[in-house]
């Protein structure tokens, strides 16, 4: 069965069984993980995994390289932190407000950026993100270098106390799962098919009668919205919104996570996010080694590992019927 010489397709019922087992094990690991691993680390990983997955929707399925995704992540983080701390909103409304702001920003910046293609698109998104970075430096409500600190986590729907670690973890996990499921549905919808058609051959998609600008903009807004959701969640987990989240390094990190995990794969960004967050935790506090290592991973990924971790593993798993 495991020998690579047999190329006979597995019977469908075996595949279905294996897929169910795989999904079940993944779910079990996610549920049990906080008892084995430091929960805050897991929550950080999940927030960045959702963030990277949102970026992957653009790069992996629409072929658009946004080099400024930190603007959505960072600003929604600020807005949610402000809403919870100053306006005293409950967490669910705070997340809603933060995510809505990110969606509106996505609409405005996407509308500008899709006017140019390829390399210019990347430069425009980077420049727009820098504009929003400077805006965050100057606007008083972000509190400059300090950021918004000691954000109260509050009670979810007035019932669940997110101040405790475990409820917070399961809430983050639920939002992450919902976000990833949503992205999965988008990618496999007719809309997602059109996006891929645009990515692979833009002139052909135009000649087929698709209004590509509208598709690109919709994808951009969806991606910004999910990135915003991740940012809002992050500000509640860490009870902090700071300039780090809107910095261009963060935009670069999310590119790295996606590239390392596997562009255009469902779980790639998640795997990449956890690897990058682990590296951050491990090397934090010893100078700028995190930056250097991230740079090295970038170079290796681009030169020799363009499929990423999941992209490399999936043919192997597909052959064994574990994933579709």
């Amino acid at each position, binding site marked *: 069965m495991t020998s690579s010489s047999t190329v006979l397709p597995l019977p469908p019922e075996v595949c279905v069984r294996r897929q169910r087992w795989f999904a079940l094990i993944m779910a079990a690991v996610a549920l049990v993980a906080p008892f084995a691993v430091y929960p805050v680390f897991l929550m950080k990983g999940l927030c960045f995994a959702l963030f990277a997955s949102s970026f992957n929707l653009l790069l992996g399925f629409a072929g658009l390289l946004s080099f400024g995704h930190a603007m959505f992540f960072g600003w929604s983080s600020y807005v949610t932190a402000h809403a919870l701390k100053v306006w005293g909103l409950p967490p669910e409304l705070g997340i809603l407000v933060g995510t809505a702001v990110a969606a509106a920003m996505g609409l405005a910046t996407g509308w500008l950026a899709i006017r140019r293609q*390829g390399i210019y698109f990347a430069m425009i998104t980077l420049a727009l993100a*820098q504009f929003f970075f400077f805006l965050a430096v100057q606007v008083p409500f972000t509190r400059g270098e300090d950021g918004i600190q000691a954000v109260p986590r509050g009670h979810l729907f007035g019932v669940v106390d997110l101040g405790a670690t475990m409820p917070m973890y399961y809430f983050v996990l639920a939002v992450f799962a919902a976000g990833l499921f949503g992205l999965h549905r988008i990618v496999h919808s007719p809309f997602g098919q059109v996006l891929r058609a645009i990515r692979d051959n833009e002139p052909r998609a135009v000649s087929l009668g698709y209004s590509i600008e509208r598709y690109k903009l919709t994808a951009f807004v969806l991606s910004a919205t999910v990135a915003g959701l991740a940012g809002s969640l992050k500000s509640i987990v860490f009870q902090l919104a700071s300039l780090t989240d809107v910095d261009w390094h963060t935009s670069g990190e999310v590119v790295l996570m996606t590239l390392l995990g596997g562009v255009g794969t469902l779980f790639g960004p998640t795997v990449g996010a956890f690897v990058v967050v682990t590296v951050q935790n491990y090397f934090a506090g010893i100078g*700028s*080694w995190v*930056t250097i290592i991230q*740079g090295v991973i970038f170079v290796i990924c681009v030169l020799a590992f363009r499929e990423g971790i999941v992209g490399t593993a999936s043919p192997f798993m597909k052959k064994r019927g574990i994933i579709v």
Partner: protein
Amino acid sequence: MTSIFDIPTGVLFGQLLLGLINGAFYAMLSLGLALIFGLLNIINFTHGAQYMMGAFVAWLGLNYLGLGYWASLVTAPVVVALFGMAIERTLLRRLYKLDHLYGMLLTFGLTLIIEGVFRQLYGISGMPYAVPKELAGGWNLGFMYLPIYRGWVVVASMVLCLGTWFVIEKTKLGMYLRAGTENPILVRAFGVDVPRMITLTYGFGVALAAIAGVLAAPVFSVNPMMGSNLIIVVFAVVVIGGMGSILGSIVTGYLLGLVEGLTKVIYPEAASTVVFVAMIVVLLTRPAGLFGKGA
């Protein structure tokens, strides 16, 4: 002291001069980016790091080898260009057949490595670099005080930019270069060593960034992050000007520097964002850029 619109002329012209200096750096960097993009089809994210390296080579030369400013103006671009050409030969070359975006990602990774190493070695606080004594002091022009060094930066950068423009547009070497940009395969068929031309072009673009770094060292302090703060603004400048025209990227660079200087006088709060606002306005009105030829 005289004033225009309640702004003392000394302040106004002082800021405009500072704007012109920033513009000089924008122009030199965006010119290098445009040259490299023309032939390599790569957006050289490392450009900012290479500008920083130019300043650092000058600083290291002064403090460890006793090399003065004028010597650094020659050695720094050569050293950084050699480094750049080594990168082109070993790494960038592998990406020419792939999507342009990979080049940007690779050079972004290199930027992280270079900046990380310099930060590890020299920290993040800036190091001062004295103005060379031949260019110290200043002239009182009546309407403003002109520090000689700042005047020198503007003049030197203009000479470099116009010299580059002249070489590319008016000489045979430049003709090969432009032909290589249009159709490298055909130029190769005529017996021109295109791969070597690509390496040298990359080296030249990088050298321009390094010279800008040396020129910048006495104006700003030398620090590992000086390049990345600049390069993103330069990207906006490139989007505004479009990379299709050499003269276009030079003019756009100086123009935006002046706009920034003027903003510092009229509405200082917007000085750090005005270039990005200008980019937004250009995208709304002329999406292809001021001198662009399509997307």
